[in-house]
């Protein structure tokens, strides 16, 4: 009898541990296989792959710099637009709506639904609705009035860094605001009450006592949003124009690491394909770094507050 019981436990724990090990294996496998797939390109181009600014597959020139630049620029635009809005949404739900639970819950549902819309639908909407709108009502007026500033000096066609950044901002707001909201919710009530008892206004409580307390978690949400923006593929591919450029012109077409893979993978072969897989390897390490950082920050903030039995 005793032996039988032990066996049941052993079988279960082995099966479950195998599943947990599978996840570690998956991350390790990703690194190993992507390295294997990109080995020809790594051997052939070496470090010049990362700093080369020319991408001309027909002439065997493969430099990833324009795509790294495009990824950084679009993510920066997305963060500049998206982060303040996300913070606002989170503050609104967790601080302003404390006495209106249902409304706060509904708003949370709406924001979560926004996160559930598939990337390719954002892309489709971007191509047919957002591009004409931004081009006619934002980019052209900016270009006409402020065209002497290098940022706005290219004649806008809509397929550009700026549009890609705006689409990314729309896409990362749900993630960032949901995480920030959860972080603000774990700030102890006493923290707010102490500030109120000093006669502070709502905003002063938020600014001086809630936000500073939650800063590492908010920074975690920020980094998580950045990670989403870095890896986002389809919507960006559809609106960015897919021409590698390193330029400060926001209205110039460009390309990102992920849009490059999505756009050119189908027509590539041989060393070209290997170079694209190496782009994926770059993306893998960047994503690994960003996500690990975000998780560490969030973990520091929320540790001990979750139900532990």
């Amino acid at each position, binding site marked *: 009898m005793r032996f039988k019981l032990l066996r049941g*436990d052993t079988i*279960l*724990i082995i099966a*479950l*541990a195998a*599943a*947990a090990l*599978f*996840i570690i294996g*998956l*991350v390790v*496998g*990703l690194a190993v296989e992507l390295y294997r*797939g990109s080995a020809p390109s790594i051997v052939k181009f070496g470090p010049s792959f990362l700093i080369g600014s020319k991408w001309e597959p027909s002439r065997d020139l493969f430099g990833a710099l324009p795509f790294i630049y495009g990824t950084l620029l679009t993510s920066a635009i997305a963060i500049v637009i998206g982060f*303040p*809005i996300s913070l*606002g*949404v989170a503050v*609104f739900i967790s601080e*302003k709506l404390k006495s209106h639970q249902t409304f706060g819950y509904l*708003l949370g549902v*709406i*924001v979560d639904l*926004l996160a*559930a*819309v*598939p990337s*390719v639908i954002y*892309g*489709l909407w971007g191509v*047919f609705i957002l591009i004409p709108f931004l081009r006619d009502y934002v980019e052209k007026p900016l270009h006409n009035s402020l065209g002497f500033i290098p940022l706005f000096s290219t004649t806008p066609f809509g397929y550009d860094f700026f549009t890609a950044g705006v689409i990314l901002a729309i896409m990362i707001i749900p*993630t960032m605001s949901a995480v920030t*909201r*959860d972080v603000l*919710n774990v700030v102890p009530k006493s923290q707010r009450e102490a500030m*109120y*008892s000093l*006669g502070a*206004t*709502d*905003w002063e409580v938020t600014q001086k006592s809630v936000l500073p307390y939650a800063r590492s978690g908010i920074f975690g949400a920020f980094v998580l949003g950045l990670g989403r923006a870095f890896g*986002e*593929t*389809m919507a960006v591919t559809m609106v960015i124009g897919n021409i590698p450029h390193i330029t400060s012109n926001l209205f110039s077409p460009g390309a990102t690491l992920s849009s490059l*893979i*999505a756009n050119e*993978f*189908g027509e590539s072969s041989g060393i070209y394909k290997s170079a694209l*897989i190496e782009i*994926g390897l770059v*993306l*893998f390490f960047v*994503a*690994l770094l*960003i*996500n*690990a950082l975000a998780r560490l920050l969030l973990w520091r903030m929320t540790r001990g507050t*979750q*139900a532990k*039995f």
Partner: protein
Amino acid sequence: MEHRLSFERAGPMTKSNLPSSISLWRKIVNKLMTVLVIVAVILAVIPLVVILVDVFIKGGPAINIGFLIHLPTAPNLPGGGIANAIVGSFTMVGLASLISVPIGVGAGIFFSEWSSSKLSTISGFMNDVLTGFPSIVLGLFVFVIIVLTSKQFSAFAGGVALSFVMIPIIARTTDESLKLVPMTLREASMALGIPRWKTVLKVVISTGKNGLLSGILLSVARATGETAPLLLTAATSSYFAKSIFQPTASLTVLIYNYGTSPYATWQTQAWGAALVLILIMLGLNLLVKFTIGRSLTGNARMEM
């Protein structure tokens, strides 16, 4: 609220003699920030409303019975449908579920029930990292291990790629929902002399099954909307695939291909397909939100 209002009426309290204009200034800043926060909410919600409305307006006219049951036609020929893409999407998501549910649920149970073990900490951390991974990287991975080896784009490869998208989500939601099961239930079961494996399978899982199920449904929704991994693994096709080892069409890849094509008929069909896709997604999400998903905690929700 009461005590604050009465306090503001009494004027500023800091260092006794500050002029009352500072109090006014503080009130203005307070109001201003409230307005800014509300503006942020409006800015965040507008795109959702606009996207949904646009998809319904532009996709609605494209949808009829023929659109749902016919095969695609060449551009600018009438009567094209998306039947093979619908079947392809369901096939691949089904395959992905077969792979990811056992692994994801298993890992989730391990994270929750053996949460103090080292393996649980490391794997749980990797799992969180994996959740935020660009899905196109997962697609590249499956391309290298399956498509390159079999020299064939296939629904099988697509399903495997989607399963890698689903596993971390299922594992995390399982973990979160099982952690909500009160410890006393486990103790009561153990006190009756029921072995641990039976306690886990019969007591813990059946108590937390709602959360578990909603996690699985949310991951299915997420996988249904994935494009990038399928682009690199299943490619596309204009016909029904004869087996899971052939290139297979999917709703998302079809939307991408049609939406970026120069043909008006295909563009209209892309909107139609987008409406079908969004109805599936919203259906799954709302089902989870308003029925079984209320028990999910914040951490599980934020993975979506």
